[in-house]
């Protein structure tokens, strides 16, 4: 049983005793156990470290640590050895023995496991020298690689819960709200609504009890920063929520987590239990007259529940249909009571602001967008991962300096931000600084920070179609313009990708996208036209190629391409013939093969399996 913290002073005593019990400078092997690394075998690496160190009798001289996501997912599983800050990438079980023998015992670097910069080919040994991290400004992600997410003591040793202590000890709720207002923090869930204003209006609203919600229903495809924070540093989110509850006067909080994130649910659940044990949640927090509890709500698997009113409906146990937002949730939210709802990143930012001060926070970023933003760099980019940067950094820096550019020497075509609600930004606008306003002007949006890089092999019409099929599936279907509008738009764009459309239909598509945007009830409908409008705006010639010339320049849309075999390159190995799922390839052994066009489904398997590049796409 842990001793409850009954006063702010207690916390400091506890922190000191935790620090004392830890030998400083003890060597440590940290293995990143974010979902990405875990999927590549990080847990096996960790357990093999543990057992081998024990075998060799080194386990008392060395710590092994399971940490949260470092963000550099492309190179996972990551292993960092301190002191020395040595980074090893793509470590597998069989490498562990060598690491112990060479690096830990003899202090040698194993070159083949070090990171090699894709553009310059330079080898980089220390984690903080990796260009991917160098240009970042890590506030929220700072501790992700340093602490064990399932141990509250680790968080405390790094200064955790001192923001809460500061708030409870010295500040009134009004002061907290005014501090958040001064910091100009804006909601990180996508809308960018000023957090302080939201809190103030919930504080002012009559009604009791008041509720607090953390929205972790991160549904944007290609986004995983909320997941990483919840998995890697759950206490930072919890601390933010407790401070928020104190500020607005809420006693009950909910966190609405996506069901696809089992590890996040588990780690956050443990965080709640640990905080309860120490009296940081529950009755009389830190001995003050302040009670707060948090419940976890597993999401049901509906993207629309990222919309605040829909997630509220879902927590209430209803179908996740958005309500008309004519009365704000801060006045009538969960069970018609005043409710303040913020995204994971927003909550995690709160302790940092309280700790370091609003002015300091407001000095980061652009005039209207303050602080940092975490982007999920994904798609056709060398360094897939999470990049936290100050607002206002240009997309070019993000994609090329941090992301390491496009793989295989391909040309960058567009960058998609904001998920299904966002838009595609073409190469020539890459110098755009990212903040809420600039992205909206370019026809896209910040969203929750997805940033998907597309190269010349990506068909923009196909991308628009992809997002429509996503929103069609995820729309709740209650309002006509969204439900029927998306269905129709998808049919029309499908016609385009089949070469069965006309210029009149393209005009109608634009008109419809605009009207759906204008007339739908909730955010999903109001933004589902963005992918279409932005791709038509910047890549109209690609649409025209599909419509007029009946060609797909990127070679993606199946009805507009065909495959054939170059008889000079074909050796007649029979690999394509064996792999063709529809028996559309014929040929004798060691003779050039042919593709029967009327049977070919254009799946492209033959092209992928051919070792001689003899299958050509026209």
């Amino acid at each position, binding site marked *: 049983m842990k001793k409850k913290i009954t006063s702010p002073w207690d916390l400091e005593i506890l922190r000191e005793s935790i620090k004392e019990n830890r030998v400083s400078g003890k060597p440590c092997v940290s293995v990143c156990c974010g979902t990405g690394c875990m999927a590549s075998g990080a847990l096996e690496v960790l357990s093999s470290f543990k057992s081998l160190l024990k075998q060799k009798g080194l386990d008392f001289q060395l710590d092994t640590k399971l940490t949260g996501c470092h963000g550099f997912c492309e190179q996972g599983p990551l292993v960092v050895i301190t002191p020395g800050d040595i980074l090893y990438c793509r470590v597998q079980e069989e490498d562990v023995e060598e690491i112990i023998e060479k690096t830990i015992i003899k202090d040698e670097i194993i070159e083949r496991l070090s990171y090699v910069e894709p553009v310059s080919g330079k080898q980089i040994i220390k984690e903080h020298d990796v260009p991917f991290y160098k240009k970042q400004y890590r506030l929220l992600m700072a501790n992700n690689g340093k602490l064990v997410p399932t141990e509250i003591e680790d968080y405390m040793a790094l200064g955790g819960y001192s923001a809460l202590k500061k708030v409870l000890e010295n500040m009134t709720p009004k002061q907290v709200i005014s501090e958040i207002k001064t910091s100009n923090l804006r909601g990180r869930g996508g809308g960018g609504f000023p957090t302080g204003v939201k809190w103030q209006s919930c504080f002012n609203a009559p009604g009791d009890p008041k509720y607090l919600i953390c929205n972790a229903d991160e549904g944007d*495809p290609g986004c995983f920063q909320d997941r990483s924070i919840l998995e890697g540093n759950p206490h930072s989110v919890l601390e933010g929520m407790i401070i928020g509850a104190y500020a607005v006067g809420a006693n009950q909080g909910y966190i609405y987590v996506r069901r696809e994130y089992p590890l996040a649910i588990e780690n956050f659940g443990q965080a709640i239990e640990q905080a309860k044990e120490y009296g940081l949640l529950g009755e009389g927090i830190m001995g003050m007259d302040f009670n707060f509890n948090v419940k976890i709500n597993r999401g*049901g*698997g509906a993207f629309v529940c990222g919309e605040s009113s829909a997630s509220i409906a879902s927590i209430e146990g209803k*179908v996740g249909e958005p309500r008309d937002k004519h009365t704000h949730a801060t006045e009538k939210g969960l069970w018609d009571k005043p409710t303040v709802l913020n995204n994971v990143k927003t909550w995690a930012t709160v302790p940092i602001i309280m700790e370091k001060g609003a002015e300091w926070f407001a000095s980061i970023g652009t005039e209207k967008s303050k602080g940092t933003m975490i982007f999920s760099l994904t798609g056709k980019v060398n360094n897939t991962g999470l990049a936290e940067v100050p607002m206002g950094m240009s997309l070019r820096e993000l994609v090329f300096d941090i992301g390491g550019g496009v793989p295989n020497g391909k040309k960058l075509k567009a960058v998609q931000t904001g998920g299904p609600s966002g838009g595609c930004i073409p190469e020539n606008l890459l110098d755009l600084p990212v903040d809420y306003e600039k992205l909206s002007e370019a026809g896209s949006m910040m969203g929750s920070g997805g940033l998907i890089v*597309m190269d010349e092999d*990506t068909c923009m019409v196909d991308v628009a179609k*992809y997002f429509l099929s996503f929103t069609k599936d995820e729309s709740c279907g209650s309002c006509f313009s969204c439900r029927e509008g998306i269905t129709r738009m998808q049919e029309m764009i499908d016609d385009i990708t089949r070469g069965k459309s006309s210029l009149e239909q393209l005009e109608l598509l634009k008109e419809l996208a605009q009207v759906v945007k204008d007339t739908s009830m909730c955010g999903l409908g109001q933004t589902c036209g963005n992918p279409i409008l932005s791709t038509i705006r910047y890549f109209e010639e690609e649409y025209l190629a599909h419509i007029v010339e009946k060609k797909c320049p990127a070679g993606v849309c199946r009805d507009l391409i065909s495959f054939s075999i170059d008889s000079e390159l074909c050796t007649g190995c029979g690999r394509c013939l064996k792999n063709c799922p529809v028996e559309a390839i014929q040929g004798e052994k060691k003779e050039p093969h042919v593709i029967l066009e009327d049977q070919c489904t254009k799946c492209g398997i033959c092209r992928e399996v051919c070792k001689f590049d003899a299958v050509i796409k026209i």
Partner: protein
Amino acid sequence: MKVDLTKIDQMIDKYSSEEDVPYISILQDINDEYRYLPEEALHRVSKKLAVSMSQLYSLATFYKCFSLVPKGKHEVQVCMGTACHVRGAPRILEKVCQGFKVSPGKTSEDGEFSLETVNCVGACALGPLVVMDGKYHGKLTLNKIGKLMGGYHEKEDN
């Protein structure tokens, strides 16, 4: 599978102390237990909590986490997130459908495989990606997924 009504009652009772009964959580628990929502179980919840069947049915069909039909022995999820999409997820899906003889959202006739498409599992560095019985398989090519599925078929044969 036979539905044990006392077990269902226990699941309901777990939440009944709460002011506002979280129907979704109860249904999730039932779904976790049976890997789908048996009709008898829905009727029981409806009766015990005096909530209409149509309301429960609306919930059960709205949220993707529920299934109204029994799931296959192996659950296969193909990630269709944007990052996976631009790296070729549609072709992986096609291959999985062919190999396991199942279409998205359905269970194969032999009851072995249930296939689901998910809109991003948040492991974009590994795309395209398939989750088989909770285990992630990333950076797939058509060859790799073929081998992976081959492994499953062998398991079945033994």
